[in-house]
């Protein structure tokens, strides 16, 4: 009995430590719910409808995808100001390939992704191997790729793509039974996710047991499973109630899973955090700082391409002004989600919460018919406040 309570005590301690370390994320999550509550009240319930939330999730996909890459960039202590311009160019390239050159959507997507990867590598080369500050390198690209976009689009909108391509931005997962009352595939995906989570959670418990480490007590474990399952069920039921899970959201979820894995479980991820935390110590520990930085920017380029594809598909057009201020949304998402402007700290899931906050503010203000000029002002101020909170909380710690 004694042993049991002491074990429970130390697990509780580690949970407390975990909460302390991630306090920023939890507060942001609460803030998100608060923002949703306010908009729901102000819009008389319009905000919280399945339809609007489904749209909100689609709208946040571009920002969310880029924010995942931006987390790595910012954790390493750098910045990428060019993602907006580059996304505009890449969207225009994909559009031009399909609408003007008659390239198939699959090939166009592949070319766009590779181009994004190359642009990111270009940034990484100058930053890591030539020592030019990231701020300058990406500022240069921010300007340069505005020009490239104009060149590719000829200053005009390129539009109307095949249904296949459009579905990446606007489509929903098709039903299995065509005449079903609701989107059965989406419901199935929700159920499968819950089952997979339960299996993984218990497998993790077993390997920890095999190593002889203490594990959470069964009630705590069940509590966690119930909590996560309800969350998954809630989100998927919102989408099932409307038209099903949007394909763009599925892409975003895939990216979130991959990048969470990279940041938490791989040596590359560890290296990124070590470089951001103390570059000298990382170097002296044998970490290849330059190569890591190059990879960070290459990944940013690839994700920018993916975001550009989703965005272009959603609009069903590439415009000369596309991608405007995407960098603000991506950077703000990271910072709101707890990524430190000084480097070394930040999580993928935090940035996604941040992206949800940004998208909710956009969406809510649009529902309220707030003039676009005020929307810009408010978003700018939110970024300022988020950075200030970052510094203020750091001083206290």
């Amino acid at each position, binding site marked *: 009995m004694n042993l049991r309570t002491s074990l429970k005590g130390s697990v509780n301690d580690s949970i407390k430590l975990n909460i302390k370390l991630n306090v920023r994320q939890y507060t942001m999550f609460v803030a998100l719910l608060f923002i949703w509550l306010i908009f729901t009240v102000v819009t008389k319930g319009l905000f919280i409808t399945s339809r609007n939330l489904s749209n909100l999730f689609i709208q946040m996909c571009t920002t969310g995808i880029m924010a995942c890459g931006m987390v790595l960039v910012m954790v390493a202590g750098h910045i990428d100001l060019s993602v907006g311009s580059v996304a505009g160019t890449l969207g225009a390239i994909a559009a031009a390939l399909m609408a003007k050159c008659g390239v198939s959507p699959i090939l166009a997507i592949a070319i766009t992704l590779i181009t994004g990867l190359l642009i990111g590598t270009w940034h990484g080369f100058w930053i890591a191997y030539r020592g030019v500050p990231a701020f300058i390198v990406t500022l240069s690209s921010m300007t340069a790729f505005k020009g490239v976009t104009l060149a590719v689009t000829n200053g005009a909108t390129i539009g109307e793509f095949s249904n296949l391509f459009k579905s990446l931005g606007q489509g929903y997962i098709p039903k299995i039974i065509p005449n079903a009352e609701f989107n059965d595939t989406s419901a199935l995906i929700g159920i499968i996710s819950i089952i997979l989570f339960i299996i993984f959670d218990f497998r993790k418990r077993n390997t920890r047991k095999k190593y002889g480490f203490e594990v959470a007590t069964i009630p705590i474990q069940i509590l966690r499973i119930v909590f996560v399952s309800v969350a998954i069920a809630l989100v998927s039921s919102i989408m099932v109630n409307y038209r099903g899970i949007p394909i763009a959201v599925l892409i975003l979820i895939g990216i979130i899973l991959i990048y969470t894995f990279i940041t938490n479980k791989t040596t590359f991820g560890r290296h990124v955090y070590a470089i951001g935390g103390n570059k000298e110590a990382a170097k*002296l520990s044998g970490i290849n700082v330059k190569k890591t930085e190059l990879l960070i920017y290459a990944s940013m380029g690839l994700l920018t391409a993916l975001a550009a594809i989703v965005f272009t598909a959603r609009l069903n057009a590439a415009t000369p002004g596309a991608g405007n201020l995407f960098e603000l949304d991506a950077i703000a998402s990271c910072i709101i989600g707890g990524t430190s402007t000084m480097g070394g700290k930040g999580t993928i899931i935090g940035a996604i919460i941040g992206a949800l906050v940004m998208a909710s503010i956009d969406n809510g203000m649009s529902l309220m018919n707030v003039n676009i000029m005020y929307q810009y002002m408010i978003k700018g101020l939110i970024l300022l406040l988020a950075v200030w909170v970052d510094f203020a909380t750091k001083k206290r710690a």
Partner: protein
Amino acid sequence: MNEYILEMVNISKEFPGVKALDNVNFKVKKGEIHALVGENGAGKSTLMKILSGVYPYGTYSGDIIFKGKIRQFNTIKDSEQAGIAIIYQELALIKQLSVCENIFLGNEINDRGVINWEKSYVETEKFLKEVRLNIKPTTLVMNLGIGQQQLVEIAKAMSKQSDLLILDEPTSALTEDEIDNLFDLLRGFKEKGITCIYISHKLDEIFKIADRITVLRDGITVATHNTADLDESKLISLMVGRKLTERFPKVRYEPGEVVLELKNWTVFDPEIPEKKVINNVSFTARKGEVLGIAGLMGAGRTELCMSIFGCYGSKVLGQLFVNGKEIKARDPGSVIKAGVSYLSEDRKGNGLVLIQSIKKNISMASLDYISKATVINENEEIRMVEKYVTKLRIKTPSIEQLVGNLSGGNQQKVVLGKWLMTDPKVLILDEPTRGIDVGAKFEIYNIINSLVESGVCIIMISSELPEILGMSDRILIMHEGEIRGELHWKEATQEKIMSYATGGK
């Protein structure tokens, strides 16, 4: 008329946990060149920082009497206005600005905020002439050599009408000719009645230039003598004259075969590519021995080890062998793989990621060993890290604790744990016990013993002579980038080491 321009009476200064100065008395006569000597950490810099107002009035006890009046300096500006100028070892000029701009920085000759350049240039030329520097006032400082920069610093001190000039290790970067020139200049100042405090590790220079010498040791004034009454060996015994107590749990083992060999190692300064920081160093280190590297500040010990690790120098010549195999790569990753690890003297700057957990810090240099296809086996990681936390007795409730929240001694153990996890054949420890308490020091000595017993070769840099003597099997002594002497532990004494370290035969 008082013959002393400066009297520092009963000065005491405490840092958390250490008494840096203990009732120090220091008197300087007007118009003399007074040398201040002592080992690393004897308290010279602290004393000078008190004098120049870096440590403001109230943070120390005792009185400063300068030009007959008790002074309370709160900032460097206060001491400058009183007529005290300090020239640091690391020059404090702004390289992108001109000589003239540097000399009048903060004291610009101006008329309602508009700088009078004509007058500034004329004045600058006057001061440059005084320090015998034949350059234009508009020359950018970055185009000057170190020796010339030093003279600009002195000219700057002149411009402030200083009566007391403090030179901290002024010759460490100078050539023979430049040193002679500087000495001529100082003698000229003496004739004009300017007083000079001269801090140096180079005893031959001190005997050449100083009128009187004050020796500090462990924060206490040992003695003040006329230079004529001393010789080098007397001075050295004053500097080190403490009794060695049995504080070191040293265990002797038979050293095995050579694991690390350095041949004709020459390293060039990262900023001044033609300057040699390390000059033709060769040595061997054996399995199961502690090789101590002694020397005074600036002797090049850290630079030597950083260059072996591939982290220092614009150019490195020479060969490095580990277990008889030449290591040609000059990056930390390859050197670690070859079996050499380096614990840096700057724990917070170069060793730890303070915002990360103990776990991530310890596994940082050995992630490859615990991962498959770059995916980290986290359970294996926890197991390994917990092993080292237990072995090194790191006091913490959890390995998830942030390193920034640990005490100095525990932080040092975390860095040690990081390097032990790489399973090194050669472990270089650079000042392994700096800034940690006595208990933790003793534990680190015991860890060194157990490592040596298991066949690891330890190379230990230390500025504390008792530590070097107490823990080493063999001692190399460095001076000005060269190895000046090698002593077996049986023949080594503080006096012998200090004699080599100050450039003696």
